[in-house]
């Protein structure tokens, strides 16, 4: 192994270990990783720009689709900022319902993560089991909100659907099953020999590195940094509920697993309290169509860590600027650090351990032309003409086709 040649292998943009396109170029010496280059930008969808073209109400549904898993996180984070600008006092029943959905979402995200982590270390049984149990929480979400993901619960000034007593009972019944299963997973994750062998000592990120690289969420908490927006800067109903911020000092992937499974237990506790305390009252206050001039930053503890939205309004019904900072962007630099001098076999689980969501985090990459290093910005009409020319050069002419189509439509 000492004289093994150095070479680079691509992990991504298309690779079985990654659920979303992202480029990792890994320099290897034998099985050892010398360095990793991360390239974002394969999944950029221009959501921030699109949000500026839509009204606030439309934006809720757009921003909900930033992420498939933490959809409620993004929409709540956005409307919290909008409500702050508009100075709306959201009724407390709505805040409690937001909290309940947020925690149910955390349960479904953490169970999903547990399965993915199992798959990355070749333990498919764990994947099958935890995804089966995840169906319980998915069913609860579906019956409360009408959807398994992208719940559409939030609206400016409150929530759109109520939780009635039968649904409350359904949630409590589901939690009973989930709690029992989670205890079993805690047992597996902390006792199964091969899992411990594959997880402990892998992807070490010390406390100092967390503070230096600004990691968030379970990644930070697993290194003993007590960083949780729910406790640090309470939003929704978290200020009135009691729960513990789970931390761990293993500083490795094992610690991140322990933090996540223990957080599941905290989520059950929070939901039980919230259902018990659920106050009576209206679900929503009337929000103005045009939001007054102002700006606000809103923070939200998504399952993957701190989510930040910035909204600036200009007094119209459309926002002037929306900025999304998904938790993965804060954690992705830590991956590079964690992979240094590790084995290739650790790569999938180390990447998975931050629970990456690349499509949420993706942003525009400004490309420089490789040959001359100069910038090239191309706008929509010139791109259109360029593509027509490009096809013409290769013998495909759309002008005739266009004419025909137009004739047909005008007829």
């Amino acid at each position, binding site marked *: 192994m000492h004289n093994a040649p150095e070479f680079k292998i691509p992990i991504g943009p298309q690779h*079985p*270990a990654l659920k979303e396109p992202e480029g990792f170029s890994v320099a290897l010496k034998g099985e050892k990783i010398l360095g990793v280059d991360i390239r974002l930008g394969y999944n950029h969808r221009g959501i921030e720009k699109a949000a500026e073209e839509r009204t606030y109400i439309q934006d809720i549904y757009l921003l909900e689709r930033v992420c498939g898993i933490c959809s409620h996180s993004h929409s709540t984070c956005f409307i919290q900022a909008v409500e702050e600008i508009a100075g709306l006092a959201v009724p407390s029943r709505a805040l409690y319902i937001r909290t309940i959905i947020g925690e149910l979402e955390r349960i479904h995200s953490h169970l999903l993560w547990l399965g993915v982590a199992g798959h990355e*270390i070749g*333990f*498919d049984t764990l994947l*099958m089991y935890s995804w089966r149990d995840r169906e319980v929480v998915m069913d609860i979400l579906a019956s409360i909100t009408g959807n398994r993901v992208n719940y559409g619960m939030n609206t400016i000034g409150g929530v759109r659907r109520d939780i009635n007593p039968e649904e409350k009972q359904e949630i409590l019944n589901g939690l009973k099953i989930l709690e029992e299963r989670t205890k079993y997973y805690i047992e597996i994750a902390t006792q199964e020999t*091969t899992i411990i062998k594959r997880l402990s000592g892998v992807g070490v990120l010390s406390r100092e590195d967390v503070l230096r690289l600004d990691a968030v969420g379970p990644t930070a908490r697993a290194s003993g940094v007590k960083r949780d927006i729910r406790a640090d800067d309470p939003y929704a109903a978290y200020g009135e509920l009691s729960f513990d911020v789970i931390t761990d000092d293993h500083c490795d992937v094992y610690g991140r697993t322990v933090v996540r499974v223990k957080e599941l237990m905290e989520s059950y506790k929070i939901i039980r309290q919230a259902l018990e305390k659920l106050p009576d009252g209206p679900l929503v206050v009337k929000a103005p169509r045009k939001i007054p001039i102002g700006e606000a930053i809103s923070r939200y503890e998504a399952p993957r860590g701190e989510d930040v939205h910035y909204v600036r309004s200009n007094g119209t019904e459309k926002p002037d600027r929306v900025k999304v900072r998904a938790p993965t962007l804060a954690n992705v630099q830590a991956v590079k650090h964690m992979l240094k001098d590790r084995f290739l076999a*650790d790569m999938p689980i180390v990447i998975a351990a931050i629970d990456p969501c690349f499509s949420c985090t993706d942003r525009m990459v400004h490309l420089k032309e490789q040959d001359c290093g100069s910038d090239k910005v191309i706008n929509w009409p010139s791109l259109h003409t360029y593509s027509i020319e490009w096809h013409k050069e290769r013998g495909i002419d759309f002008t005739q086709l266009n004419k025909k189509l137009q004739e047909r439509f005008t007829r």
Partner: protein
Amino acid sequence: MLGSLFYIIVFPGLIFLITFALIAEFIDRKIYARLQNRVGPPWFQPFADFIKLAGKEDIVPADSNAKMFKVAPIFALASAITAFLYIPLWKTSSLLSFKGDIIVVLYLLTLPTLAFFIGGWYSTSLYSRIGSVRSLTQLFAYEVPLFMGILASALLADTWSLKGLAEFYMAHPWFWVFNLLGFGVALISLLGKLEKVPFDIPEAETEVVAGGFTEYSGRMLGFLRMTLDVEMIAGSALLALVFFPFGLNVNPVLGFLIFIAKILFIVSLISLLRTVVARLRIDQMINFCWKFLVPLALLQLLLNLILKGVLLK
């Protein structure tokens, strides 16, 4: 002449072996699925997979050494099938046998791994190269305990041929109980040979896509997958003979049923083992083999040496 041709090609040779191997693959997959709370495939799935692959185009990478790339799968399948012909199934004698055929069977069962290495290496893809180097690295870890486990049993019987081994254990019933430790060692090593969890490191999907098999497609991939199935049967048959040598030389129908039961027992043990553990890293795998399996195999050898002195005086 015609008789032995029938033996080699139809029963218990090629056609029977391949059918049985595919059925065993189904059983393995079904047990694995049921233990994971899934429904699992229908019984004809392995056959359908093979027919589908056989009907597809073979793509040979432009940079690869085409000859080596194409020969490796056939070479692997042929050696796994040949190994099976040397193993006594429900009689004490087998189709082909000579003094020292234990070594030949073990050698023939090693060849597929070498063929996987050659095929992976010459396909020149980076994933294939890493995967094939891993399978070769792994070979050096599991072969030693596997050989020691099997040869410990032969040591007790004082023979180098499978026929002699079978005859010895028929003459001394219940002696196989002493070899159960060796069976455990050999079974775990067999998981490495078959590249199954926890030793599926060479084809770890989340790390190196499909390892040495990454560039294979169509018929050649079908052959490679069938090699693993046939190897599973041949390996299980070898373990069944060496560690459970009873019910041989009875009525052929009963003997056949006992043989099938033994193989299925070993196959279901393999499925069970791969359900309950995670994949190890290559360094952990080598440590495990040399630190735990080899000492256990040595213990078995020591035990058999003592037994030989005490019981067979």
